[in-house]
């Protein structure tokens, strides 16, 4: 049951990475997609990241009832949970909804309106032309978005902690800097790159094999988001298990 779609997905990826007809055109498409995926998602990622940091601080402070535990630990917990898990994973799930659905519906609409057939008739490798720029753009911009998300989450945590009185500014900053391991950022970036690939390739696969009409485009889009989310969480576990 799973082998047929998996085989089709692998064959599609093989076609995606075939040598481009003209690098210039692909490069232009990559920049266009970087604007669409990266710049177009800055606002939503910024909003969710600030709230992520705020809620992490509030809930961590709520659970630290013992006076034996220093308050600075709140900063450390916010830092590590943000870098390792919350920023890459929650951002990826939000981007699966925003970018993934857009990729699946865009390619799916092109399929049902014969635009993909038109590309193939011209002798253009349609998977390469339509999907490769999206994957490359996502793999470049999503780690940037995750980096932004980490910064804003920590800022949100700092603001909520200090404004609510749950932790002092000094304690929070001390917690942030104490025992910091740079490897956590590496793990976060590895996750971001893998998630970016999953979001674009899985959604593009769903869109590319759409058949029917508008209803099926909607189904492909939904399926792209759902499968991407499951794959993101599976990959999240695998990366954590392998790297940590």
């Amino acid at each position, binding site marked *: 049951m799973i082998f047929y779609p998996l085989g089709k997905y692998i064959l599609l990826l093989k076609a995606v990475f075939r040598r481009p*007809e*003209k690098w210039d*055109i692909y490069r232009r498409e990559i920049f266009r997609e970087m604007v669409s995926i990266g710049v177009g998602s800055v606002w939503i990622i910024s909003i969710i990241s600030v709230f992520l940091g705020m809620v992490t601080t509030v809930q961590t402070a709520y659970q630290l009832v013992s006076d034996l535990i220093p308050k600075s630990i709140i900063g450390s917990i916010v830092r590590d949970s943000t870098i390792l898990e919350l920023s890459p994973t929650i951002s990826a799930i939000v981007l699966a909804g925003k970018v993934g659905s857009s990729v699946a519906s865009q390619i799916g*609409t*092109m399929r049902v*309106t*014969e*635009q993909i*057939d*038109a590309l*193939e*008739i*011209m*002798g*253009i*490798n349609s998977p390469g032309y339509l999907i490769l720029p999206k994957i490359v753009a996502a793999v470049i911009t999503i780690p940037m978005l995750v980096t932004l998300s980490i910064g804003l989450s920590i800022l949100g945590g700092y603001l909520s902690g200090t404004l609510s009185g749950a932790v002092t500014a000094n304690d929070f900053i001390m917690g942030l800097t104490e025992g910091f391991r740079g490897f956590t950022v590496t793990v976060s970036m590895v996750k971001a790159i893998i998630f970016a690939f999953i979001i674009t390739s899985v959604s593009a696969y769903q869109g590319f094999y759409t058949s029917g009409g508008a209803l099926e485009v909607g189904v492909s889009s939904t399926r792209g988001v759902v499968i991407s989310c499951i794959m993101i969480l599976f990959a999240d576990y695998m990366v954590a298990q392998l790297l940590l």
Partner: protein
Amino acid sequence: MIEIKDIHKTFGDNYVLKGISSEFREGMNNLIIGGSGSGKTTLLKCMVGLHEPDGGSVIYDGRDFTKMTFEERIDIRKEIGMLFQSSALFDSMTVEENIMFPLNMFTTQSRKEKLERVNFCLQRVNLEGKNKLFPAELSGGMKKRVGIARAISMQPKYLFVDEPNSGLDPKTSIVIDELINEITEEYKITTVVVTHDMNSVMGIGDNIIFLFDGRKEWEGSNKEIAKTDNKELNDFVFASKFTQAAKEKL
């Protein structure tokens, strides 16, 4: 010239094409006609490689297209222009970008040269000055004409047209038919048109193939069609009282 030999195609249990052979000659409008579900669009898609036939071959001027790899087919595809039923213009591009797209992909021409070619193609389909419009801003007939302009931008040797008159009023349909006819004669293109529009059949059908139940039932010209005693063809072409009356007057 395009030759098709013993083309077979099935989709699951559905046997759509049951061994079709024919020749499509250069400088002629070759029409494939037949009722809905008779296999005409499937045959067209097998000819251009959008479907892989289960058996048989498609030969473009001696080159067996069905035996070629994706890379080997690219050279032939560059010689093919196609107008789709839905026009299939790229929504995100303007008219100018749509027509320039194959030139950008496959030529090393300067932007000025490409723009000259785009303007020539637009002028050829009577759409001068519409360069900056998007497909959403065009009427159905205009979309078809832009589709034709895009199809001829690479100066194709073979032109495939799928249901050029669907969704168009009779007057616009005639304009599109005449345009296809003019382009075919002017550039000596091998044109293959899938249609069930009787005006097209009688107007531009130099060579007509009638498909019935996945088989080639009849082949001839528009002059011969009125005289045929083939029952299936007569039932299809002269289905209405109006066409029956017209036939009696012939």
